């Protein structure tokens, strides 16, 4: 596809018309395996993308967060032969682009980075992260369950991206956030962004922020939660929560996992797999000899909320929620962290 020759090539930021966006996607798809928001059974899900036509950029939230690209719901650590075989590895070197991720989801990846690349670094996660470019998309259309602005994780993205798109209505602003992003802008010879584009970006960000209805007051939150371990709200939630685990599956920062050995039908070869797990399931608190230290649903939903909004901060220096709202959307009973925190704070 030939583009009109711009006067100045973009170093840090460019503006894109409709055709330029299609050009960007097709160029990326030529060099990388590209994944982005696509339409799937009436919902939006992250999936493989060849061209702009495959993408659904005007979306609220994808069904599953991007964590599935860094550790899959069933992720093989290694495979084995029971009687002295070879452990071999999957291909972690595939160059990928995650296109059109919303700020909440990019910030969630930054939180997962703290978990998987700190002490006892997970080499598989790290290599997949290193081989994946992030093209963020600022959020213009917050959903009814969104509360990202409470955590500073949206609706606009400030870090964690290689390229960042903002839909300005008649065109897109495309900004580079890394050396790799700058190189791409340079290679694609896109038109340098004019100053008005940044003013327009501020404007759409302000509008988006104003459209976010739900809020969590995060001031001193870990401390306030720790003082309210026995709060009556938890007993109430025991009656609400069905302990289905949907909230943890759709959560972009939930990372707990089980480890299973899966044998094939010969019972000789198998794989050791990581399987997404959930602290709200009864089995999660089981210990040897029939014990279970979180037998009640109240104890388990409490563990989920406390891990996000209290323990994670001590462990990793940030609150463990990005306010994407998926847990509320996925919950049959619409259990809502903002409502829980508001009740506990008495607000």
């Amino acid at each position, binding site marked *: 596809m030939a583009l009109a020759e711009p006067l100045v090539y973009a170093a840090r930021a460019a503006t894109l018309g409709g055709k330029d966006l299609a050009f960007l996607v097709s160029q990326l798809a030529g060099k990388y395996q590209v994944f982005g928001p696509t339409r799937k059974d009436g919902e939006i899900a992250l999936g493989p993308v060849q061209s702009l036509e495959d993408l659904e950029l005007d979306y609220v939230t994808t069904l599953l967060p991007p964590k599935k690209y860094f550790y899959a719901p069933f992720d093989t650590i290694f495979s084995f032969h029971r009687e*002295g075989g070879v*452990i071999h590895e999957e291909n972690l070197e595939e160059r990928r682009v995650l296109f059109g991720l919303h700020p909440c989801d990019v910030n969630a990846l930054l939180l997962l980075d703290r978990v998987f690349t700190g002490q006892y670094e997970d080499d598989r996660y790290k290599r997949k992260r290193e081989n994946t470019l992030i093209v963020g998309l600022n959020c213009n259309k917050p959903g009814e369950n969104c509360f990202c602005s409470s955590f500073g994780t949206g609706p606009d993205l400030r870090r964690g991206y290689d390229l960042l798109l903002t839909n300005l209505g008649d065109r897109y602003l495309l900004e580079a956030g890394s050396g790799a992003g700058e190189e791409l802008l340079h290679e694609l010879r896109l038109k340098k962004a004019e100053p008005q584009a940044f003013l327009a970006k501020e404007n759409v960000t302000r509008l988006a922020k104003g459209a976010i209805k739900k809020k969590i007051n995060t001031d001193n939150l870990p401390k306030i939660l720790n003082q309210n371990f026995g709060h009556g709200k938890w007993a109430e939630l025991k009656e609400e929560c069905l302990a289905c685990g949907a909230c943890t599956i759709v959560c972009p920062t939930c990372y707990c996992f089980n480890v299973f050995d899966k044998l094939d039908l010969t019972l000789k070869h198998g794989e050791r797999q*990581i399987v997404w797990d959930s602290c709200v399931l009864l089995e999660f608190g089981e210990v040897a000899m029939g014990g279970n230290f979180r037998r009640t649903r109240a104890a388990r939903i409490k563990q989920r909320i406390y891990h996000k909004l209290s323990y994670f901060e001590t462990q990793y220096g940030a609150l463990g929620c990005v306010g994407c709202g998926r847990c509320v959307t996925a919950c049959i009973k619409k259990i809502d962290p903002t409502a829980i925190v508001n009740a506990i704070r008495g607000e």
Partner: protein
Amino acid sequence: MQQSSALKKSPLIPEVATIEKITQETPDVKTFRVVFDDPSVMDGFTYRSGQCAMVSLPGVGEAMISITASPTRKGFLEFSVKKAGMLTGALHEAEEGQKIGVRGPYGNSFPIESMYGKDLVFIGGGIGLAPLRSLINNVLDNRDKFGAVEIIYGARSPQDLVFKEEILENWSKVKGVKVHVTVDKGDDDWKGPVGFVPAFAEQVNPSPAGSIAITCGPPIMIKFVLQTLAKLKFTPEQIITTLEMKMKCGVGKCGRCNIGEKYVCVDGPVFTLAQLGNMPNEF
């Protein structure tokens, strides 16, 4: 199992080891002496008393087991395993010479340096003596660094006492070491004390002055031993215990052993009672 060197960095991939010797301790406890197949892995496996390792059988799974060997005795690892679940059940079926997977060591350890010059009181119940045994042998191998040692141990019955020979033939003969053994319920041959560990410990009546108490056993025993120690005027800072939970990764990621801000696998399993007091009341 063999593995390519490129994969060594992933923390969930075990090293291959061979079971060299199996000792039947009790009807449901066996001790496995294990050596890594790669001598450089064996040499590089440095651990401290109280640490654990992930033991696995391909096709069955993994479980976190405390290392009962003492780091003062090199060239092998030992795990004492009670038959309790899938992996431990399969381990009990294993034979000498069989290959297993081992990765670690994981967790913190008993703060042995802080015990120098102190009198030590070990209180163990059942298989809970396994992690204590590593520290006891470590202490006995560095005997001059520590004061008097009291070992209080009990099990359900005389048949359920682990490390019987070592307790009676080795430990009780070391100078400055007193061994007290009880059983919940005796039999015709049992001539020793009968009674539960917490009450028995109270009778032994160890002095808290200049002492550290280290206790490990079933949760219910620990609960009452802590009461006994409080009665004997041990402070929470003088009491050390270990927590056990199911673990899937051992490296602070899978979430199974998360209590409050702690992951038992990384921040534990060894805690002082003072530290446990700061955790949410979940155990």
